């Protein structure tokens, strides 16, 4: 129990954040009550990208060391990332329906999360198509790194795609970003909480995989 103190702390922390999201923060003009979606939707998207980043890092490590342990980390991180990507997409879509009146309208953020979804899907499709463990790890790592190299280019491409169709005031350098301090507190708190949550899930997932590895080695 002693070593699990941070898990309890996380539970309390997240409870405070949820309460804060509903009771403490003010609502933003134009978004109404749906402002509160922010504290759950954005952290999901954050974890989705973070896990993609971590997966790519472990892929590089794998290619350097050829140690299957790194592949386990990379694949586990990708799997968790995929789940959070789906969560972020679904919640974002519901939110978009409420404020933009349609579930999906290909604005830059929707497009980027969609590409991330595609990359994850391709990564898992590739993994399932290869039998041999080390070969699977090698090819998946290469794919992961190539996807990682591609993503920065999307930053340049995607915002330019639809701004002619969706006059988009959202990315606007002149506009100063101001957030109510109370909102900022809960937002950052929630972001932190989700990150710890991600770490926790990653630990569980990798532990399972390590045990499976041990099991198969004994046989």
């Amino acid at each position, binding site marked *: 129990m002693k070593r699990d103190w941070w898990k309890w702390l996380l539970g309390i922390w997240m409870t405070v954040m949820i309460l804060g999201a509903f009771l403490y923060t003010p609502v*933003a*003009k134009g978004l109404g*009550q749906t402002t509160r*979606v922010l504290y759950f939707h954005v952290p999901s998207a954050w974890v989705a990208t973070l896990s*993609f980043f971590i997966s790519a890092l472990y892929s590089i490590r794998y290619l350097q060391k050829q140690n299957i342990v790194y592949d386990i980390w990379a694949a586990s991180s990708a799997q968790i990332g995929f789940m959070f990507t789906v*969560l972020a997409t679904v919640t974002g879509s519901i939110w978009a329906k*409420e404020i933009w009146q349609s579930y999906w309208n290909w604005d830059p953020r929707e497009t980027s999360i969609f590409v991330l979804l595609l990359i994850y899907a391709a990564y898992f499709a590739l993994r399932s198509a290869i039998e041999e463990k080390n070969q699977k790890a090698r090819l998946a790592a290469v794919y992961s790194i190539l996807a990682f190299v591609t993503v920065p280019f999307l930053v340049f491409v995607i915002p330019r795609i639809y701004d002619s169709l969706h006059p988009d005031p959202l990315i606007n350098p002149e506009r100063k970003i101001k957030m109510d301090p109370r909102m900022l507190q809960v937002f950052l708190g929630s972001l932190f909480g989700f990150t710890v949550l991600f770490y926790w899930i990653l630990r569980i997932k990798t532990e399972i995989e390590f045990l499976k590895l041990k*099991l198969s080695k004994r046989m």
Partner: protein
Amino acid sequence: MWHIIGMYMLNVLGMLMQPETKPVGQNIYVVLAVTLIVWLGVFFFLIYLDRQLKQVKQKVEWQEGEEKK
């Protein structure tokens, strides 16, 4: 990698500042739905992992028992 999250944040921040004429987003049930989806998603994933972990642990124990014999 940070750009996607950055864009999301900017998106939201921008929307906050956008002068709106139509009253939108007053639906608290949407918030409820989103929150529930996130938590249920995480929860079910944890349950799934937990079951996996238990199964694997059982197998390990069973094997260790076999080896002792």
